[in-house]
């Protein structure tokens, strides 16, 4: 029953509600992504916008087509498909063929979210599932990076490759800071990493911007601040120890923190509330695991960048972490919850 002017409200608890619900949370993250998209437009021009647009379109179309049949499109309103599509687009190289970005959006929502039962049921971060699929399907195209500063209207011919066809190889390519470090032992100056005028994925290059956005999101309590802190401190400490032991071979911890997709993945993907543990201790473990894996893959793995696989691996470990580290229910004394389960 709905009264227009109730004199007396008769209701049961809860009386106080926090205004944050899922669409609200998604809107905050989308708002935080806006400066990243603007910066990407400035660095990489229209090509980057088209790639992000194509992956978002793929994500939204899949969410619409495979959503609940009675009320088609109703799940679009929470904004999570939009967010996954934009996040996926921001992790791709700017000269990526648009049809591949579209396919990535389809896989991200289809295999990353909907087959698990929709939002809140997925084990892995949808955007990263899409990217991992693209990385496995098109390994050379996804590691071909375009340089910056070719003018806003510049489109590489790779962007416009016909569906199912190869990207032509005549694009000018550049190496990312991590690629330079790994294969040529060349360090990019820290200043350029902070500003973001180095080649890389569309949304990951400007560290200073990402730090500011991260602080804003943490202040708004959009995500659990423990996750970024755990990841970044682990990477800094692990890389720092290696750097102190042998500064010739290993890069400085500051380089490790500000290069590649570490900040972007940490702020926008590792903090996904669906795929990260619930209890504070579990969250710390989750973050430390990601940090250790990132350093291991970057320094000793075959690929220059390992943030994606590190987050996906710890996503897979999240149900285990949640099972082992359960918060003690109030009033249960010092009993272990697992013991209680066994009985």
């Amino acid at each position, binding site marked *: 029953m709905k009264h227009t002017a109730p004199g007396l409200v008769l209701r049961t608890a809860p009386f106080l509600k926090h205004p944050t619900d899922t669409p609200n949370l998604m809107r905050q993250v989308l708002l935080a992504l806006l400066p990243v998209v603007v910066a990407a437009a400035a660095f990489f021009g229209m090509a980057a916008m088209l790639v992000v647009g194509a992956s978002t379109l793929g994500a939204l179309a899949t969410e619409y087509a495979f959503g609940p049949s009675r009320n088609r499109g109703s799940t679009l309103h929470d904004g999570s498909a939009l967010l996954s599509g934009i996040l996926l687009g921001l992790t791709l190289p700017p000269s990526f063929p648009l049809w591949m970005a579209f396919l990535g959006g389809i896989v991200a929502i289809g295999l990353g979210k909907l087959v698990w039962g929709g939002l809140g049921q997925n084990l892995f971060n949808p955007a990263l599932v899409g990217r991992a*699929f693209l990385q*496995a*399907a098109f*390994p050379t195209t996804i590691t071909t990076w375009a340089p910056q500063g070719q003018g806003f209207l510049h489109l590489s011919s790779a962007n416009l490759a*016909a569906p*199912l*066809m*190869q990207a032509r190889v005549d694009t000018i390519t550049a190496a990312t800071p991590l690629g330079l470090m790994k294969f040529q032992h060349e360090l990019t100056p820290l200043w350029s990493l902070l500003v973001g005028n180095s080649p890389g994925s569309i949304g990951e290059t400007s560290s200073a911007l990402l730090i500011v956005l991260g602080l804003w999101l943490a202040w708004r309590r959009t995500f659990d601040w423990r996750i970024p802190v755990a990841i970044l401190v682990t990477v800094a400490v692990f890389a720092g120890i290696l750097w102190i032991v042998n500064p010739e071979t290993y890069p400085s911890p500051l380089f490790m923190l500000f290069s590649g997709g570490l900040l972007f993945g940490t702020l926008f993907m590792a903090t996904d509330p669906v795929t990260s543990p619930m209890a504070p201790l579990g969250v710390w473990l989750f973050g430390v695991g990601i940090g250790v894996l990132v350093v291991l893959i970057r320094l000793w793995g075959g690929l220059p960048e390992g943030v994606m696989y590190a987050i996906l691996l710890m996503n897979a470990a999240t149900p285990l972490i949640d099972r082992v580290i359960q918060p003690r229910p109030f009033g249960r004394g010092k009993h272990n919850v697992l013991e209680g389960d066994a009985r």
Partner: protein
Amino acid sequence: MPSIPASSPGGGSGSQGSGVADGDWERVQAEFMKGIWKENPVFVQVLGMCPMLAVTNSAVNAMAMGAATFFVLVGSSFLVSLLRNFIPRQVRISTYIVIIATFVTVADFTLQALLPDIHRELGAFISLIVVNCLILGRQEAFASKNTVKHAVADAVGMAGGFAIALLCLGSVREILGSGSLFGVSLFGSGYEPWVIMILPPGGFIMLGLILLFFNWLKSRRAHWLQSLDKLGEGAR
């Protein structure tokens, strides 16, 4: 020797070769068809996943595997059904394995002699047909309890269903993973192959999607039949 009573719901254990009743031919057909669709070993029973995922990176490999499995399954079902009254219960599994292994060895050597390239591609998976749960399952669940005629019909249906599923997966994976079908290029030289599709993850993803598709098809069919029934009731 304690012999198991032949529990054949159709005719008696000695009916094979003698006169065929009218209802019997229908049953043979039913045993054959159930393997193709209603109890398809892959889409419904989800059996034999090891060869299903391992050798379906091209349509030719899938077809060779399907043919080898067909030969082994039909041959061993025939022999097991023929010998079902002489196989002691206690050692039946090992007897089935010996019979299956015999046919696998024949298939292995035949492939090696006639199609050495495909034999090299399939590698150990030809020998591994011995432990394919689909084949052992058919011996234990069907051939050892039924007459030769029905056992062979069942084996042909099951092996046919298995081969169809292998060919489905192999074709899709070859089209996406290398842009060709049976080695014939479909999209010209500019095709960008989806490398993941010829790797194991692509096999898992594609198999999952095909299972999803068939389950969807089945539920649609059930739904459709239900609405037909309702329509019929309304007309009455």
